[in-house]
């Protein structure tokens, strides 16, 4: 495969796409939201259990491209046991990484750094951030179920 394509579809991304982590519904969940990307029809449901300002459990369901599914999978492994504030700060850094707007601190981003290749594919940035937007919508929602779109 071409090296630039390999930068986007890294082995770890293909693995997470095939065998996503935390790929299930949480019941009960303290927060949940549905995310939708009208451009490609990606749909995702995110479920969170938040206790004392900390995400103690997370799960997701849905269908989407390899980038969106792998990003959701990696995201769930990273936000578990982090505080809501930590997750929000991390999302800002991740957005900067995939849109190429800021030069990210790779050490701080940890496993998320594998998505750096997305910055060369502007139309795919929304795929990478869909699950994160959905988590933010869930955390910010007062109602039981929130719906967020990338548009």
């Amino acid at each position, binding site marked *: 495969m071409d090296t630039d*394509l390999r930068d986007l579809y890294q082995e770890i991304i293909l693995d997470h796409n095939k065998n996503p982590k935390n790929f299930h519904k949480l019941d009960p969940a303290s927060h949940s939201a549905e995310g939708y990307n009208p451009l*490609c*029809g990606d749909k995702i449901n995110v479920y969170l259990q938040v206790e004392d300002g900390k995400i103690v459990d997370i799960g997701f369901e849905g269908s989407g*491209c390899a980038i969106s599914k792998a990003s959701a999978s990696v995201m769930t492994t990273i936000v578990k046991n982090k505080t809501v504030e930590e997750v929000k700060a991390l999302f800002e850094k991740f957005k900067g990484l995939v849109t190429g707007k800021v030069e990210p601190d790779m050490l701080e981003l940890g496993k998320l750094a594998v998505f750096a290749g997305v910055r060369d*594919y502007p139309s*795919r940035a929304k795929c990478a951030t869909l699950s994160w937007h959905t988590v933010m919508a869930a955390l910010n929602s007062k109602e039981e179920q929130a719906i967020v779109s990338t548009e």
Partner: protein
Amino acid sequence: MAETIEMDDRTIAIGKNHKLFDVERIRADFPILHQRIHGKPLAYLDNAATSQKPKVVIDAISHYYQAQNANIHRGVYYLSEVATQAYEQARECVRSFLNAASTEEIIFTRGATEGINLVAHSYGRRFIQQGDEVIITTMDHHSNIVPWQILCEEKGAQLRVVPIDDHGELMMDEYASLLSAKTKLVAFGHISNSLGTINPIEKIIQMAHQVGAVVVVDGAQAAPHTPIDVQALDVDFYAFSGHKVFGPTGIGALYGKEKWLDAMPPYQGGGDMIKSVTLEKTIYNDLPYKFEAGTPHISGGIAMAKALDYVGQIGYPQIEAYENDLLNCATEALQKVDGLRIVGTAQHKASVVSFVLESVHPHDVGTILDREGIAIRTGHHCTQPVMDRFHIPATSRASFAFYNTKEEIDRLVEALHKVVRMFQ
């Protein structure tokens, strides 16, 4: 005689008259095709979204602004008369393209979407009443669904939908059972943009007319592939877009029967659509100008006419035969790709192939193909009800024009094998 001419696989004899179809000569007319994308030759296979433009069309736009530009229907000076004449000649060209009875029945629009909206807004608001029924189909483009939803909601009318079968063909028995005295309007696409299905247009129109309904046809996908004769079809309204038939974006035309256009109120108010204006009362202009408020896309109309001429010179029998050959070749080759399923297997199809790959999302397919220089469309193609019908979120779609080649199909198939290997 074609049999006596030495041919390679790019030059094939087509049709009863054995007219030669020389794809290399046609490709030479399209400057954009001769470039490299990510280091690979461009294979443009997204013609159902928009087509590329031959040099005569590009030159017509440039020539208009370099030598003819003035506002039309107003000036008494030379340039204005030249521009007016060129624009009205373009209207005559569209009339001839559709075989309409008169240029009064040809309204320039921004495209098929505006044509359909014009009918929904102007005819629909005047003639559709509470309790009436409007029929559309599952396979219609959003642009032929949403205007009717808006109209029905506003009027308290009912929207009825003709379903499609597993091949992507309209279920004509269901259509027959939906028709009744309540049916006032039937709207459908001549050819489906996401499935490629060529609908039985004559039959659909006849059946609608038997219950007294008017028929609106979205011809956006048909214009580049098949000849259109609005008088033979006896269709009430027919809309198409210039950019899908090798003309510029932002221009199209709507055909409407004169008796309906006469009875309809204007679409938009403004200059050019009036005979006289006082602050108390306005007298509307004659057809077709009653429906053309404001300064139009003059260069677009002129260049679209050049595109229609260009297509006419190649000839629809030649185009249909060549594209059908591409369709058969692509269908056969794609079916050999592991885990590939074609969505839309109607008996009569235009050169559009939608497909899904087992366990690879269309968006990933699109990105990987792009790096091979191959442009295809991935997504729902503005036909979400079709995606719902087949229980899929999206498809990948390769759509061919007469400038595409079998070599490009080979490259498409090779790239798809690569995608499959990558996601194994």
